[in-house]
């Protein structure tokens, strides 16, 4: 009886939704159109877990596109892979009054493989439909079912999809059978409803009337302003494997077991390892030799198919072909170290993602693998996909975050090294000499460390013609002619790079009457100030902490004397500090600038202070000296 009732309710719901006019734009509350380019009228997610490795997902969404700027929100892009199929796609276009314009046919829907931009091959595919309408507003509605065979992760849910889009109604329901266990994590004030239906339990979350938010610069995500939910299975089946995700320990154990026996090396490779390290004395020396062997002899090729997205290719195989993805190369390096008697552990990490949540284990918090080598005194982290990175330098996309260490006893959350203000330096010393005609010869010597090393290192891999273009483009100095330049990484094992650039220009002095103006900061000028944001709602952060030091010594053209130099400037704030010092002696001016920034996450209300801080720096960087021509 209950069963029949459910069917009736469903049928009724369906009828009412397909009735004309329900998507009439006039029915959208005014608060939801403010600052919005699109409005989610209704979104329904239903995930029905049928077994450890099977589930059905029913999805339905209706979005009103208010203006041209909102068009992209109206595209259907649904991803699947060989462990799921998408079927029963229905798509309809409505006009502003909610009148049906057309139903799309299955021939309108494109099916193609989805490129992640770096893999040679992977098995994600996408169903694509572009809705087009020549008049605004319009509403698109589509629905589909997705059958899962293999369940590593569940669809997540968020009521706000991003900036500039509001949500009238959105809900998510997960249905599981009794005895199936899973965990979920919700945003702060989100209420979870649960009902028991026979031998099934349904969890429900919903949200309504959430206004749009204008895009905010430097935002650290919209987690604090949206309702969201993440769900993960405890036990699961996937591509012929089973496992348990209920905590990171078990998660790590699953990863470990996937790779059992994956560590063997062919005899020839073992021999090679022994040969390579025969003269090395310390484990660190051995590691250095093997890491540079890895960098010289392997290349990155990413192939992600099924369980191959999680299980490294056997070390034996990598030894044969000398290529692999992050997992294959990390595991191969682990095997090489093992042969040298050095134990190491694989690390599952979210490269460029948020830190992993220590209390909530799930797929989807990581996208990368590196290697951890715990030596007696210090622990070294190895990025095995780079043919260039100094040993132990993992880059700011891997630094300062919780990661999962995979051991034979299971997984363990640890934290990767932090590159701080002092580590990420740029120290620059410049000499600018004017000849009698006012032409300036400029010599700039810079040293870059860690995160700033990373930014500059890319230039050294370019061809000279490209390098020249980049150097000229990056320079603040007007009208430069590039004479010579040089990049040097003196010690390949350290993330430090030195740069020497020589320029010439005739446009440094601005002349007015018998005076000349000289902007004193020619090497590290802030050229713009971010706009203020009223009622900011999201947190913000700068990409990484850093520290810049600049010194410029000017030798003035003959016949000019210093008539005016600015006063020293000190600016301090919780975001960082700034100083500028100006001194003159004989026919020279010495300019010294320092700036430090820290990459903490700041609450929204601090943003305008941050803008103010930047504005002060902007003004300080424009300070000029006035030179007078001796008559």
């Amino acid at each position, binding site marked *: 009886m209950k069963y029949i009732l459910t069917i009736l309710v469903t049928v009724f719901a369906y009828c009412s939704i397909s009735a004309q006019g329900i998507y009439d734009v006039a029915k959208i509350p005014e608060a939801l159109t403010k*600052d919005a*380019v699109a409005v989610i009228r209704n979104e329904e997610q239903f995930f029905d877990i049928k077994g450890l490795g099977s589930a059905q997902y029913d999805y339905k969404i209706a979005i009103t596109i208010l*203006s*041209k*700027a*909102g068009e992209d929100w109206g595209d259907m892009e649904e991803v699947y892979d060989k462990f799921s199929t998408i079927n029963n796609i229905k798509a309809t276009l409505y006009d502003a009054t909610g009148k049906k*314009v*057309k139903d799309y046919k299955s021939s309108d829907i494109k*099916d*193609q*493989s989805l490129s992640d931009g770096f893999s*040679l*091959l992977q098995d994600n595919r996408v169903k694509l439909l*572009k809705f*087009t*309408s*020549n008049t605004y507003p319009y509403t698109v509605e589509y629905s589909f079912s997705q059958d899962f065979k293999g369940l590593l992760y569940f669809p997540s849910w968020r009521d706000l999809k991003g900036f*500039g889009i509001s949500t009238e109604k959105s809900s998510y329901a997960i249905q599981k059978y009794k005895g199936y266990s899973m965990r979920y994590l919700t945003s702060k004030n989100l209420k979870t409803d649960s009902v028991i239906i026979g031998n099934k339990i349904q969890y429900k979350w919903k949200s309504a009337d959430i206004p749009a938010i*204008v*895009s905010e610069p430097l935002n650290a995500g919209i987690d604090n302003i949206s309702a969201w939910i993440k769900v993960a299975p405890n036990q699961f089946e996937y591509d012929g494997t089973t496992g348990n995700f209920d905590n990171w320990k078990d998660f790590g154990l699953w990863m470990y077991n996937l790779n059992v026996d994956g560590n063997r090396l062919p005899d020839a490779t073992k021999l090679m390892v022994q040969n390579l390290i025969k003269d090395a004395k310390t484990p660190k020396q051995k590691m250095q030799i093997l890491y540079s062997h890895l960098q*010289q*002899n392997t*290349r*990155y*090729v990413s*192939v992600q198919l099924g369980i191959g997205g999680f299980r490294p290719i056997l070390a034996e195989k990598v030894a*044969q*072909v*000398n*290529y692999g993805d992050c997992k294959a190369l990390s595991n191969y390096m682990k095997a090489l170290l093992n042969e040298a008697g050095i134990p190491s552990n694989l690390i599952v990490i979210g490269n460029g993602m948020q830190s992993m949540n220590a209390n909530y284990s799930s797929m989807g918090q990581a996208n990368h693998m590196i290697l951890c080598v715990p030596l007696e005194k210090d622990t070294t982290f190895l990025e095995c996909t780079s*043919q*260039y990175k100094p040993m132990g330098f993992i880059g700011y996309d891997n630094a300062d975050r919780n990661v999962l260490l995979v051991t034979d006893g299971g997984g363990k959350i640890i934290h990767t090294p932090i590159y701080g203000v002092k580590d990420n330096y740029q120290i620059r010393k410049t000499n600018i000499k004017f000849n009698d005609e006012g032409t300036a010869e400029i010599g700039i010597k810079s040293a870059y460390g860690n995160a700033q090393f990373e930014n500059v290192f890319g230039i050294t*891999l370019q*061809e*000279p*013609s*490209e390098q020249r*273009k980049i150097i*000229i483009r990056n320079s603040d100095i*007007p*009208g430069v002619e590039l004479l010579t330049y040089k990049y040097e990484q003196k010690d390949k094992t350290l993330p430090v790079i030195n740069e020497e650039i020589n320029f010439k220009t005739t*446009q440094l002095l*601005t*002349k*007015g*009457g018998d*005076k000349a*103006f000289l902007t004193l900061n020619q090497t590290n000028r802030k050229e*713009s100030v971010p*706009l203020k944001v009223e009622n900011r709602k999201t947190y913000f952060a700068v990409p990484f902490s850093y520290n810049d030091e600049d010194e410029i010594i000017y030798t003035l053209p003959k016949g000019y004397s210093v*008539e*005016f130099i*600015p006063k020293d400037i000190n600016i301090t704030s919780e975001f960082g500090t700034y100083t500028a010092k100006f001194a003159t002696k004989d026919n020279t001016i010495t300019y010294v600038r320092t700036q430090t920034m820290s990459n903490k996450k700041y609450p929204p209300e601090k943003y305008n202070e941050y803008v103010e801080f930047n*504005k002060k720096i*902007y*003004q300080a960087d*424009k300070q*000029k*000296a*006035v030179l007078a021509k001796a008559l």
Partner: protein
Amino acid sequence: MCRTALKFLVLMLCIGTGYSFAQTKQTVKREFKFGKVLPAEFETKATGVDSSASAIKLFDVGECYFEISPVTKDFVYVFERHIRYKILNKNGYDLANYTINLYKGSGSEKEDLNYMDASTYNLVDGKIVISKLNKDAKFSEAFNKNYTVKKFALPNVKEGSIIEFKYKIKSDFIFNLRGWRFQSDIPTLWSEYNVRIPEYLKYKNNFSGYYQVEHPLHETVSATYVSGLNSNAIYDKYTAANVPALKDEPFVTTMDDYIPKIEFELKATQFPNDVYRDFNSSWPKIITSLAEREDFGLFINRNGYAKSVLPGILKGEKDTLACLKLIYDYVKSNIKWNKEHEKYATGTNPKTVFEKKTGTTADINLSLLSLLKEAKIEAYPVLISTRSNGEHPGYPIISAFNNVILVAKVGKDFHFLDATDKDLPLDLISDENLSHQGFYVDLKNATGNWISTETLIPSEKIFSYNLALNKENKLIGKINQYSRGYSALALRDNYRNTNNETEFIKKFKKDKTGLELTNYKIDNLDNLDELLTESMDVVIEDNVEEAGNLVYFTPLLFERTKENLFKLEERKFPVDFAFPFKESYRITLSFPEEYEIDKLPKGGIYKLPDDKGTFSINYISEGKALMVKSSISINKSLYTSEEYFDLKELFKAIVEKQAEQVVFKKKV
């Protein structure tokens, strides 16, 4: 196209007509044998301008010849390629991943990869060590319903490795053969393409690019397509040696226009006992076949939809130009472009396009033409090769076009029409079409000709600042900005693609530090024939500076050209701006009683020879007021590489002169 190839040939066999052999000329033969790598090849180094190249193409040899398919009994072509690289540094590693795209038609026609072999060679202790391509390193991906992508990853690649690939494709699509590119982004030591075309098939070939390709062989050779039947093929060999790497440059149509390459399109067939079948050998032939196509000529003629809607659109309007505009507006507001360029319609009837409300450029513009035709307005399709598709070679070759727009004749005036964007007024076509010329076709009379597609609407931006400087060094007043032509198109596009006016103003202010504005107003947004006008009240801080008793500022404020677009010492290719443009700036400024002008920069006029471009700036002061005018005119859309230097010098003058400051002295 030539479905009956086998039939004709077998027929000939029965009749037993004999053909004599043509004598083959002796040529120097280079050998390219798979697996045969000489130790000397490992010595190859990059030299000269390419000395830092990541890899060198040692050779790239292609063969293209024909067979009769046992399945379709028709000609198919076979494409073989043998390519060998020396990897010089890690940036060249990606060459070891090889990708081949194979096309499949909607019917049974397709392309197959019949063979692929590949190896890596490393020199280890003076010996060559070979690593073959593993079976499990061959991948196949069904990209979409038309394309399958085959991918291969070679093992043991390191700096200094030599790698090679050899493969064979058979294709049912003989209308266009696979062409050949003799240059790439790494240096090429030897590139060669050998093409053997059966005597029964005639192809047009199209050479383009900025590097000399040799054509050492053109001869008749014997070729057997049906066993027992001797026949001939025309054998052509094209070669290029020591080709430097090609690097990207700005202001080009597409870099592909500058690569030396050859392309092929079927012109005619002549089978024995059959008439000479001419497909596209001349413009009249091309136009005739366009006229007969379901998705072109016949599409335009289907007038059912036009008949039903025209009375409602025209409402009795009699003036031709007014009718033209009404129909143009109707199409623009009823069909939305799906961002695809095509020269043939997707379907066979304009009705389906209007029903779908969306379509390709061809769907839209040919539907527009069907309406114009029904309204008895004289109009013609204009075939276009878009900028990213590359320059059309000029002689009769249909496949080099990828787009179609229209030209209408009203009285003595010609008007271009491109209904793919609501914001395009009559005479303005979307900028992808700006490849300088198009080919208009008169389907009825089977004639056509090249016509210039250079726009008649000038593209112009005018900035007018009316400000008062106060003693706090703030500038207060009004800004008016006017846009025309492509400048207006860009502004309309930007405005409409921004969430709302508040966001638009934010974007506007973004690179204008110190600007605060109120009362922003945009006029004629939907009035495409009028000047697009913006006005606002402004307060500008942080732009006038003070040092000692001197006050100074750059009068062009936010509109200064800060960077010379042309920084390279020389340029091999033309500079292609797509359209001429003009930018002018005027600021009228009053300043406080206590200020005196200390220095006004010198004005000046800089002209390119033959009025090809001008820059001028001048300063006038009277009492406590100052006026500065600056104007840039780029009078051509295309500048040759010889004119590059002049252009570079003009922009150098612009950057220098616009940076000069006005200095005031404060009375103490």
